[in-house]
């Protein structure tokens, strides 16, 4: 009964969304506000309906209603309580519902915020958002209905994919989807601006905070994904250039490019056409990501797949891209640049280069991801494109971006004099070179690592220099310490928010460089009582124990780890045997540290517990990835604070 109601809600929602999209357009074209009001009410109605759907699904999960196929596929009687709730978005159908729900919330926020402030753009924005909602509700109704019934009703469900029974599961999809759907709003505003012909800077100023928030959540989602990969999947890495990881990374890259190039349009009125292209690309890439995960055209660890859903997504992607780019082509006359430049050495150039490198990285990732398909189409041979390719091409690009991150914020607009360059960059450059030299002395030979570290020091130097100078200036003009340091951050929160975000990226870059360059691992088979040693850690195998959990059978190894300084810890990696899975799932045990993590994976073992194969890793600087994420959070929060500057 509940399931049928849920299905009805989906269909009604779809009709409402179509209606609302059309009503908003009619309202603005005829000048009749009452049509627009019905469009708004449709938006509210849709939110209520989707929330009701979610309620119905949760009810089905919590009452073990295995007559609903989605519940039966993703939980069983042994699934712990909180995972029964997060199973809501654990597979294809539920993830679409989550996406649609977030979109409906964003639409409501748009309604509330802009109905009075932006009367000219708002109806079109609402229409576009409702149009996107209509698509997702259509998907929920036809190819991926969450309320499909199963007959006969199985006595027990299949269970959640055990890899998803983790805290990362609760947060990673939520953050990622908040990011993906967040980009719909600037996109909708861009479309509205193009339709109305107001292609100046308004749509950018209005959507600035949306862009930052969406970008932040996307960054967070990617980092949590890395953390989940690191501590659950048992291979000790956080990024595998898997096609679906790439599909989430690409909108992040273009989103970052967009974030930066809108600053040029704001200050100098240039790059209007380019900014519109970027937001269309970013939105298109968010759709492409969902298409890739669900269509099954490229194999991936994330692939949910199956059925006709891929066709729906491709059709919508085609509609969105062709429609948006055609709109853009139609309006190119409105997009003339108005600014000039005095010198190639200027902040404008740095921003252009920033965009160039980010787009180059996006293109590389895209081309590498679809190349297997291209190869098969062109000569019928299947090839793989994996980490060696992506690393080779992208690492130089990211190093260049690091460099630009240090130069950009400090170099002057329009023309940077030699004086300006010397004042801002001499000391940081020297610091970078010294850092590289010091590392070289300590035996670091790898050129890439040295460059990365030098750049990290360089960028940190520029940030410190600028901030220090600003603090000193405030102190000299009479501010107290608190106003000069903290107050400065709040007063110029956009600038310093950006700096803190850059600092976060720096920390992440440090973590990536360090972990790639200096991590160690070894694999060996141990008898009971035997030890293996790596980088000063000694791990002794003490034995195995078995236990029966609510939905799986677990074999846990007992290991004692000692370091030279006689501190010790017990590590208990396990192998979990789920009845519905074909191969056992490894549960890694690890000890995190500021500088290095110790990571132990239990492999094969003898039935009598006398022997076990283990993989021991000492991963360096990985924790800095997560710390960087925290810094990123602070920076983004700072950047979106309301302006403290009092109007003149």
């Amino acid at each position, binding site marked *: 009964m509940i399931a049928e109601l849920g299905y009805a809600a989906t269909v009604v929602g779809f009709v409402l969304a179509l209606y609302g999209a059309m009503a908003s357009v009619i309202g603005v074209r005829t000048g009749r506000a009452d049509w627009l009001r019905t469009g708004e009410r449709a938006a509210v109605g849709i939110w209520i309906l989707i929330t009701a759907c979610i309620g119905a699904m949760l009810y089905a999960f919590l009452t073990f209603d295995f007559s609903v196929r989605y519940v039966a596929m993703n939980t069983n009687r042994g699934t712990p309580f909180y995972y029964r709730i997060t199973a809501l978005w654990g597979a294809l159908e539920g993830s679409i519902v989550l996406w649609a729900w977030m979109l409906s919330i964003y639409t409501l926020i748009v309604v509330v915020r802009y109905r009075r402030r932006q009367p000219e753009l708002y109806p079109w924005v609402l229409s576009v958002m409702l149009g996107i909602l209509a698509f997702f509700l259509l998907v929920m109704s036809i190819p991926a209905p969450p309320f499909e019934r199963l007959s006969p009703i199985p006595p027990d469900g299949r269970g959640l994919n055990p890899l998803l029974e983790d805290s990362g599961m609760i947060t990673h999809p939520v953050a990622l989807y908040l990011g993906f759907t967040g980009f719909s709003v600037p996109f909708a505003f861009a479309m509205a601006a193009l339709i109305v012909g107001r292609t100046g800077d308004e749509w950018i100023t209005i959507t600035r905070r949306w862009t930052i928030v969406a970008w932040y959540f996307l960054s967070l989602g990617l980092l949590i994904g890395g953390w989940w990969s690191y501590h659950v999947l048992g291979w000790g*890495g956080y990024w595998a*250039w898997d096609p679906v990881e790439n599909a989430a990374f690409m909108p992040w890259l273009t989103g970052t490019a967009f974030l930066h190039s809108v600053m040029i349009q704001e200050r100098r009125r240039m790059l209007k056409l380019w900014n519109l292209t970027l937001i269309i690309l970013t939105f298109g890439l968010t759709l492409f990501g969902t298409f890739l995960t669900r269509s099954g055209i490229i194999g991936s660890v994330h692939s949910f797949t199956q059925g006709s859903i891929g066709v729906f997504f491709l059709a919508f992607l085609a509609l969105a891209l062709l429609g948006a780019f055609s709109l853009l082509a139609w309006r190119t006359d409105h997009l003339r640049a108005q600014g*000039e430049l005095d010198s190639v050495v200027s902040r404008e150039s740095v921003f252009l280069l920033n965009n160039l490198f980010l787009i180059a990285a996006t293109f590389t990732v895209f081309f590498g991801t679809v190349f297997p398909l291209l190869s098969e189409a062109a000569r019928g041979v*299947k090839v*793989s494109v*994996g980490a060696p390719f992506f690393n080779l091409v992208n690492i130089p690009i990211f190093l260049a971006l690091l460099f630009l991150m240090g130069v950009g914020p400090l170099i002057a607009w329009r023309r940077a004099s030699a004086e300006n360059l010397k004042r801002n960059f001499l000391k940081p450059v020297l610091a970078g070179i010294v850092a590289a030299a010091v590392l070289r002395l300590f035996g670091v030979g790898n050129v890439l690592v040295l460059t990365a570290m030098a750049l990290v020091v360089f960028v940190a130097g520029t940030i410190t220099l600028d901030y220090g100078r600003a603090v000193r200036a405030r102190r000299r003009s009479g501010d107290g310490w608190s106003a000069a340091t903290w107050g400065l951050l709040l007063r110029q929160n956009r600038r310093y928010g950006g700096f803190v975000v850059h600092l976060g990226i720096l920390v992440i870059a440090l973590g990536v460089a360090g972990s790639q360059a200096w991590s160690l691992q070894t694999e060996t088979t141990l008898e009971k009582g035997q030890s293996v040693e790596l980088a000063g850690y000694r791990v002794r195998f003490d034995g195995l124990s078995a236990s029966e959990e609510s939905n799986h059978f677990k074999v846990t190894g007992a290991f004692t780890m000692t370091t030279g300084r006689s501190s010790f810890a017990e590590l208990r990696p396990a192998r979990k045997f789920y009845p519905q899975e074909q191969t056992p799932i490894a549960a890694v045990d690890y000890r995190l540290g500021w500088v290095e993590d110790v990571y132990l*994976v239990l492999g094969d073992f003898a039935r009598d517990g006398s022997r076990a194969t283990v993989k021991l890793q000492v991963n360096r600087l990985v924790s800095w990835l997560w710390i960087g994420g925290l810094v990123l959070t602070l920076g983004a929060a700072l950047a979106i604070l309301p302006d403290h500057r009092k109007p003149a």
Partner: protein
Amino acid sequence: MSRGLAEVLATLLLLAGAAAAAPVDEKTVHDVAAQLRCVVCQSLSVADSPSETANQMRGIIRERLAAGESPAEVRAYFVEKYGEWILLAPRKSGFNLLVWIVPFVGLGLGFVLVALVLRRWSRTAPPRAPAAMDPALRERIRREVSEMDRP
């Protein structure tokens, strides 16, 4: 007496045999494994994957290296059995060269584009042709100027 000697000889032979088997550098195993795709995972290399298949494949790599094969020969063996698909990065030949070259070509083209844009921006804006004037206004100005010119 002779039995004891035989035992000693046997032990010595065994030890000699163990020493003669080429000691395999784990790093080489890791390097070769890092270039091969784990066939049961999606994007992990044989070096990284914790799966049983990857374990066994690493064992085979170790064996073949110990038997004297070069890393290239071990790779070729896997390609012979699984096809090009098993290499994590496409071989740099023929059609595959596209994937290696196109990104750099794209980057180069991008540089050219950026340079052109910057050049266009930094040229001083050409003086704009004066906007067409309202004829009545123009007439009025002409009249007033000619009035001004009268002594």
